[in-house]
């Protein structure tokens, strides 16, 4: 059997085949009985795997299903299928291999299964063995001493936990909250998602509620923001009450109290954990005398101003021309969209410097031009600074009269489209180096050829370069995309500092700093 034929079959089965290859596969399938047999063997394997996956992930505890009464004739129609389903379920139970646990709460062999993933965190500190940086959460008990986390279960439910809290993930649909506060946002796929407490279980019937459990007395307070929640007795599952949108409940010692409303307004919501983490950036950084400018891209009362949060520094606020305010890395975070030829922000980086680092968070929509400007001095004279991206996505730039771009070495992968990306350009005249980092990794390395000229960026444009008359023949360099943060440092940031900036600003914990590898053969 030809390996290429088998590859074609596998590609087709997994929706990765091109139209040409699909036609080729059809020809081969017409001609070869052996290939047709291979296709059937693969289908058998996939049927077994699908069935096994269904047992593995769904056998332990089904989400509660709400039955509606059916007319008698409808019951008669579906009865055979119901019996069939029950038979399959019982057969499945009997067939389940030893490594599949059946009882809830004792899931030793499944302890490595991923039940939820960490979407984001802010200052999260676990007292038990949970390692920070490990985004997978399986069944088990977690003690969050401080901070907030955002978990996404594989069924799509979002769970925000605010420390201090202790919770036990039992499976995709059931989590025990021993104490602390949570907010659950539950899509249709996770209907029935239940937070269990000592006395009561809170079963989400869609779509959002928050709950606190007291450490001392186990008192529960729950507020339904949207949809409804069933409150059930934790011992016998009896429905105690259905709480509707906008309503709240307190439950203590087996009694429901409709007393004081709980204030959940300060409780984190998805997206703002990352935003909060970013806003609380290291105080040391804000007091760092070498940070000349930090533009956090907050829209002010004058929407044409781009404010420098370092008010004590000499870099003045930027002036926005054309670029429009849009959303940034998190809900509530603003960015500027550059999508027209004349969009830019005018900023000034005054003075002469021996070292300079420029850091930006950018999301590129397309590389329309040969050069796509990040930040460029208005001119192109000795000491001017240019930082841009080529049409192929490679970062490029340096100091005019100091760097020789022909001696640059490109490393790593190009800048991706439609993904928030951290770019840092670092120039040091004493070290004779010019480097550009993409998502914390060195992507361009250059050697300075002239160490006599200082760095003198002066007036610059962010997101564009509209050259003076002597360069009018140069093609446009307008950026197509968003920028939501700019920092200017008068020292050469080292790799560790760049990685720290990246960690503070990463969109969330699932954001992957790796970029797709270069596949084009580019001639420079």
């Amino acid at each position, binding site marked *: 059997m030809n390996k290429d034929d088998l590859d074609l079959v596998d590609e087709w089965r997994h929706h990765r085949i091109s139209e040409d290859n699909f036609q080729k596969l059809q020809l081969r399938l017409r001609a070869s009985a052996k290939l047709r047999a291979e296709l059937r063997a693969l289908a058998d394997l996939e049927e077994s795997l699908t069935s096994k996956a269904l047992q*593995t992930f769904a056998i332990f505890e089904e989400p509660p299903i709400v039955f509606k009464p059916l007319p008698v004739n409808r019951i008669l129609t579906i009865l055979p299928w119901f019996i069939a389903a029950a038979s399959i379920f019982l057969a499945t139970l009997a067939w389940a291999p030893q490594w599949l646990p059946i009882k809830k709460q004792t899931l030793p062999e499944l302890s490595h299964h991923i039940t939820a993933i960490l979407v984001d965190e802010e200052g999260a500190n676990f007292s038990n063995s949970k390692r920070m940086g490990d985004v997978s959460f399986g069944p088990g008990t977690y003690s969050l001493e401080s901070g907030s986390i955002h978990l996404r279960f594989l069924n799509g439910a979002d769970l925000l936990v605010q420390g201090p809290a202790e919770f036990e993930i039992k499976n995709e649909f059931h989590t025990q909250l021993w104490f602390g506060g949570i907010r659950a946002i539950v899509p249709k796929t996770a209907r029935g998602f239940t937070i269990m407490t000592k006395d009561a279980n809170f079963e989400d019937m869609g779509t959002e509620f928050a709950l606190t459990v007291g450490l001392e007395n186990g008192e529960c307070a729950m507020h339904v923001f949207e949809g409804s929640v069933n409150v059930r007795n934790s011992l016998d599952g009896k429905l105690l009450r259905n709480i509707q949108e906008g309503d709240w409940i307190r439950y203590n010692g087996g009694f429901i109290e409709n007393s004081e409303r709980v204030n959940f307004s300060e409780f984190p919501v998805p997206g703002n954990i990352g935003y909060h983490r970013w806003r609380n950036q290291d105080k040391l950084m804000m007091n760092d005398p070498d940070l000349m400018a930090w533009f956090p891209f907050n829209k002010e009362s004058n929407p044409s101003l781009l404010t420098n949060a370092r008010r004590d520094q000499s870099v003045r606020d930027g002036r926005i021309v054309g670029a429009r305010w849009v959303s940034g890395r998190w809900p509530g975070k603003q960015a500027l969209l550059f999508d027209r030829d004349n969009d830019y922000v005018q900023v000034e980086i005054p003075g002469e410097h021996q070292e300079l680092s420029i850091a930006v968070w950018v999301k590129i929509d397309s590389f329309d031009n040969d050069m796509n400007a990040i930040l460029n001095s208005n001119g192109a004279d000795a000491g001017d600074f240019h930082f841009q991206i080529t049409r192929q996505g490679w970062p490029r730039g340096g100091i005019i009269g100091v760097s020789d771009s022909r001696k640059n070495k490109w490393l790593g992968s190009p800048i991706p489209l439609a993904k928030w990306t951290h770019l840092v350009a670092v120039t040091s005249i004493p070290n004779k180096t010019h480097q550009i980092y993409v998502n914390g990794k060195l992507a361009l390395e250059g050697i300075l050829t002239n160490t006599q000229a200082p760095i003198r960026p002066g007036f610059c444009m962010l997101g564009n370069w509209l050259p003076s008359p002597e360069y009018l023949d140069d093609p446009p360099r307008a950026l197509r995309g968003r920028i939501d943060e700019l920092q200017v440092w008068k020292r050469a940031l080292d790799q560790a500092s760049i990685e720290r900036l990246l960690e503070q600003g990463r969109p969330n914990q699932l954001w992957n700093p790796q970029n797709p590898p270069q596949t084009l053969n580019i001639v420079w």
Partner: protein
Amino acid sequence: MSQSYSEDQHQTFISLLTRHEPVIRASIRAVIWQQEDIDEILQRVSIVAWQKFNTLIERDGFAVWACVIARYEILKFKRDKVRDRLFELDPDITEKIMIEGEQEVSLSSRRINQLDRCLEHLPQKRRELILTSYRSGCSIKSLAETLGKSQDGLYQLLKRIRLELKLCIDRQMNIEDGIT
């Protein structure tokens, strides 16, 4: 129709359908690649099989008989629903694959039953990965994002695991047949 069947016939039908459902489903899966289409066709096959159950003489031939029904239902489904959809096999190829498959029902059943043993031979991480990739609603894209891998890298890895399992199943069958 169904009203004329006795309770015993009900029980027998359900028992046969339950026993042979994996093979019938696998025969559909060989030519249909979308899970929701597979489910819909299987449902149609079950209904037709129930309606025609009194025409089945040999109960031992239930699986083959149901696979023949599946063949016709698939051709009808393709004609009605997915005629112009990309990457659907042409009807003549579909028919060939299905007719040949009807001669191999017992082979298919044996293959399906070998998976458990072969999964045990896989390292735990690989076993969990391949099962996760086949769970309902899981896409290569979402799984790759979750694991921080490239889609292509993950696809190649899953393909290797599938090959490993397939070779293991072939080996187990050969052992059973006394070939090795």
